[in-house]
């Protein structure tokens, strides 16, 4: 298998090349027949790889080619698959494959169908290369490449101004993170003389024993924080999360694949991949944990007030990414990856499910215009319900195990912040259950609030089958992590985090937290039930009474407005000033001033031209006198 590792990313790449070159002219509506086999092929190969790593307990690597040989800075593109990568491979290819299948139904007949089935394989390729990268720079390349795919796919409906704007925003906000990431890579290189993760000279080893190499803790902290800011951009952590809700402008399968399951978790993956750097610095860990918990709570609170079905799910994604981040920050590395995996399944399910709803509702996304869809689309309803419950962390679905583990991990961590984070996590868990079931009740229960000419219908098999598969996965995938801190998943993955010293978690604590989080989640469900089914609480009245808080939440904590006022507009003003004043007036003014002043001087000097020969002769004479004088003075004895 080691020699065939390259095939995993290569298959989607080939599909991309074929579709982008010939999709427009010849393949057209059959583009999925190129993409799906490639995705399935990758998936099969990933499973084989996984098995091999699982049985042999060692990493596989494959060297491809030298990319940048700039002196000592020698970057070789090679593939590296260890346990962490194997998990990611499975997640990416599974969700990617299912989304490819689902989209056959969802994207059917769309203008630019081939474009969709070119970008998706390109994305899968880039994402696979990202998780297979064995050094920071290759990771960065594909980090950017997935950003490109995200740009292209968000802007898929390019005639919509909002789609273009969202795509642009996503790319630029990601670039803010990339700035920090890039600087972090440079700092890594000049600190460790290497940007390779593994091996004796790899950064993981060196960062773990940083004191032996004479590296200060401050440097390690700086690297950690820079890398995590990079992760903030991609993984939509506060305050760089603003692009993700807007990214819902893209087709819904894209939201499921890229903006829920895979690409947004790249930041988490990257942080986990370079975990020894974080271990080396408590402050960096604290930074990660704080940002993560803020994100988890903030996004959950915003999700409560949104009306757009995809926006709710999107904020839910941001919130869950926050969970993963604070799991990283509190040292629960495996738990973070575990949540990443379960989240990929149930959030993919939720997105595909909401896509199915939107599809059945002829493009309607406003939950106030839905309701009672349970009867019209049963498969969607049941699968969506499973996804929601998983997301809310209800026993024994996938989300429960991973979320519970994160909260336990935070509670028992060495960090003082851990307990705070665990409590914030519980609060966010309550909110999660609340908004998820608010969504379920608003969409699938209650009276039908849609227009009379809308006839909701269940989606076809292309869409239904992936939903069912994902629902099954959402139910069962959590059990690989059972019992917490000691399950098969841990057993497998802790090889990737060999420098992490796990904490002994007593069974009592495990059960206590299991019960606490279940209670919290169920109470969230109950509140949602009381509010939206029983109508015991009038939400409009509530919103009016607490209009300050409501508006604050509804307007997404005013983060967008803050960035507009504090960064974007001042930058444009500065740019205008630089152009109109500095460039045109000062620099060009000086240049043109030289020209005009020469003209002005010439106009004066023109009067010397009297036209009188005698005057000219006199001038010659004066010149002669002066020259001779100069010679006499300067050379004394010229003759």
């Amino acid at each position, binding site marked *: 298998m080691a020699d065939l590792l390259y095939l995993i990313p290569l298959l989607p790449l080939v599909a991309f090349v074929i579709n982008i070159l010939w999709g*427009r002219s010849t393949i057209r509506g059959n583009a999925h027949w190129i993409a799906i086999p490639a995705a399935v092929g990758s998936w099969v190969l990933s499973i084989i790889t996984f098995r091999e790593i699982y049985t042999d307990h060692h990493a596989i690597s494959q060297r491809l*080619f030298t*990319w*940048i*040989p*700039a*002196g*000592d*800075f020698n970057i070789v593109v090679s593939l590296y698959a260890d346990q962490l990568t194997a998990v990611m491979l499975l997640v990416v290819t599974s969700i990617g494959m299912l989304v490819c299948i689902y989209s056959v139904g969802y994207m*059917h*007949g*769309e203008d630019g169908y081939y474009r969709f089935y070119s970008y998706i394989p390109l994305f899968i390729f880039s994402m696979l290369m990202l998780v297979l990268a064995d050094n920071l720079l290759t990771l*960065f*390349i594909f980090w*950017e*490449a997935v950003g*490109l795919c995200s740009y*292209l796919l968000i*802007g898929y*409906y*390019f*005639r*919509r*101004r*909002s*789609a*273009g*704007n969202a*795509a*642009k925003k996503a*790319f*630029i906000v990601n*670039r803010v993170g*990339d*700035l920090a990431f*890039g*600087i972090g890579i*440079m*700092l890594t*290189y*000049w600190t460790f003389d290497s940007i390779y993760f593994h091996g004796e000279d790899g950064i993981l080893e060196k960062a773990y024993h940083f004191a032996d190499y004479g590296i200060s803790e401050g440097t390690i902290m700086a690297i950690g924080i820079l890398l995590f800011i990079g992760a903030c951009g991609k993984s939509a952590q506060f305050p760089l999360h603003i692009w993700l809700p807007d990214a819902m402008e893209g087709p819904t399968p894209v939201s499921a694949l890229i903006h829920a399951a895979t690409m947004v978790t790249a930041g988490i993956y990257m942080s986990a991949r370079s975990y020894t750097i974080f271990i080396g610095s408590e402050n960096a860990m604290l930074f990660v944990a704080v940002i993560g918990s803020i994100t988890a709570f903030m996004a959950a609170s915003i999700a409560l007030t949104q009306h757009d079905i995809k926006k709710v799910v999107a904020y839910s994604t941001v919130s869950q990414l926050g969970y993963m981040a604070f799991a990283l920050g509190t040292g629960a590395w495996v738990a973070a990856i575990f949540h990443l995996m379960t989240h990929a399944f149930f959030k993919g399910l939720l997105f595909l499910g909401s896509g199915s709803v*939107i*599809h059945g*509702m*002829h*493009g*309607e*996304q406003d939950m106030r215009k839905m309701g009672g869809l349970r009867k019209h689309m049963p498969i969607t309803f049941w699968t969506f319900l499973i996804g929601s419950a998983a997301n809310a962390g209800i026993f024994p679905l996938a989300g429960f195990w991973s979320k519970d583990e994160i909260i336990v991990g935070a509670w028992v961590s060495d960090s003082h912040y851990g307990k705070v984070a665990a409590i914030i996590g519980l609060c966010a868990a309550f909110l999660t259950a609340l908004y998820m079931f608010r969504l379920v009740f608003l969409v699938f229960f209650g009276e039908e609030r849609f*227009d009379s000419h809308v006839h909701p219908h269940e989606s076809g098999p292309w869409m239904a089958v992936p939903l069912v598969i994902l629902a099954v996965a959402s139910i069962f995938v959590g059990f690989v992590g059972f019992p917490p801190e000691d399950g098969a998943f841990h057993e497998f993955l802790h090889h990737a985090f060999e420098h992490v010293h796990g904490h002994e978690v007593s069974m009592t604590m495990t059960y206590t937290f299991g019960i606490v989080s279940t209670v919290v989640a169920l109470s969230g469900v109950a509140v949602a039930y009381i509010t939206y089914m029983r109508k015991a609480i009038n939400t409009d009245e509530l919103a009016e009474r607490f209009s300050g808080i409501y508006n604050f939440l509804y307007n997404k904590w005013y983060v967008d407005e803050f960035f507009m006022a504090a960064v974007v507009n001042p*930058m*444009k003003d*500065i*740019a*205008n000033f*630089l*152009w109109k004043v*500095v*460039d045109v007036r000062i*620099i060009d003014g000086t240049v043109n001033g030289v*020209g005009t002043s020469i003209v002005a001087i010439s106009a004066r000097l023109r009067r010397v031209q009297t036209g009188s020969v005698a005057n000219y002769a006199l001038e010659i004479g004066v010149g002669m006198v002066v020259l001779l004088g100069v010679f006499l003075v300067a050379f004394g004895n010229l003759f």
Partner: protein
Amino acid sequence: MDSFPILSILTYVPVLGAIAILLMARGESKLPKQIALAASLLSFVLSLIVLFRFKRDDTFQFTEHHVWLKDLGVSYFMGVDGISLLLVVLTTLITVIAIVWSWDTVKKREREYYVAMLLLETGMLGVFLSLDLFIFYIFWEVMLIPMALLIGIWGSQNRVYAAIKFFLYTLAGSLLMLVGIIAMYQAYYNQTGVRTLNILELQQGAALGAYSQNLQFWVFGAFFIAFAIKVPLFPFHTWLPDAHVESPTAGSVILAAIMLKMGGYGLLRFNLPLFPDGSASWAPIVIILSIIGIIYGALVALVQPDMKKLIAYSSVSHMGFVTLGIFVGNLQGLEGSMMVMLAHGFNTGALFMLIGVVYERGHTRLIDAFGGLASTMGKWAAFWLVFTFASIGLPGFSGFIGEFLVALGTYHYKPFAAFMTFTVVILSAWYMLYLTQRVVWGRAWGQAPDPADNDLLPEEKLELAALGSDHGHGHDDHGHTAHPAVSGGDHDHHAEDDGDGYPTHPGQINSSKWPDMTMKEMICIVPLAVLSLAVGVYPKPLFAIMEPALKAVLEGATRVIGS
């Protein structure tokens, strides 16, 4: 093969072509362009031969040395090393493309146009190939005149102003350089009693410390200003937007892709090896100016209303990386700036051509005049995206490697400087995607608004309401994407009215009937796209060619700078 003067031949083939055009072409005929194409192609092929026969070490190869004015120490001395070789190949390639591009776009004074083009090529090749300051200077000046003519005769409205500005700016710089050359010549003579303008000998003189620190400082300044104007480095850049905007497309391409590189080449070839002490004292100034230029160019590009001007300012930003990389004093920086030069050659050249495509159809370059071109010109939009992302510095395209290496080198010099430099990843994405958003994306002329669009303007909502509900929430199976005119003009219900539809924003011109990229345009663009991608994915051969030469340059200079 050593005695075969291949460099001279490849340099003078274009001139011979120009003479042939002058002698043979009369009146209306295709002969001028045919001859021009043949000459430039021949030159290109010869440069490829040089490329493949080049031995990857740090010596000058294919040298030709003939004493010319013995008493003055002037000789005819040509040769290539890894630095100039890549630029020579770039030059010959871009010239071929520029000539092909001009095939049907240049309609006035064709004969003279191609003569100017060929003379320009000879000048540029001579600059990269000459190893004697005397002939270098001659070529440097020779190249100036045809370019000024290209702008001044075949340019657009304000062409004469732009041509004169270009000419005077560059001439001012090159006169300073002349002073510098003479000063160095004299200093070498005073030290060694030998009169020479041979760069290699002068470099040896530098290595032996023939020039005093004070002299180096001033002569460096003289050379530096000449090259800084050419690069162009802030604050010597204001000729560039005018020259780019006014010059014909092929002229812009050559200007952006090759002429700007001469500044960087000059700094690499002359300033760094000849004046190590001068470089050391000037390096902070150059680096500060470069960083200002990088950020400044990007910011100013952000608010340009004119596409070519936007790209021109982005060139200022990109070329800042070149000067920055040269003076940070490590190999990463140097290789990075070489890569930036090459990548900028492909990417910006191609962007100018793409702007040329729409300019030739719409006769305007104002960003506001365009919109929704992705709907009407699919191939164009695809290439536009490719080069936009290449120019932004997306990994996998050529732009990234150079900019990253320069930033990496700069980090070693001063972390804060690298931080400032690297902010350009945000700014470049901002201005390029802003441009793309307004020109490529969005509604095209005559398309109805998309009801699913969340950023509709109030008047568009009214428009949509007027169209009726059947278009608002369509009955088709794909209601969630209910945009009535998605499939282009043929399904456009407005097409029934007058066939033209209506503009989607004020100032827009009708692009609905424009043909997509023609065969000729594809021929010009595709090689650049392939190269840009290939260099981005597998740049190793380029590094292998340039690394020895750059190492040699660096060894001479770092004795002083690096410490």
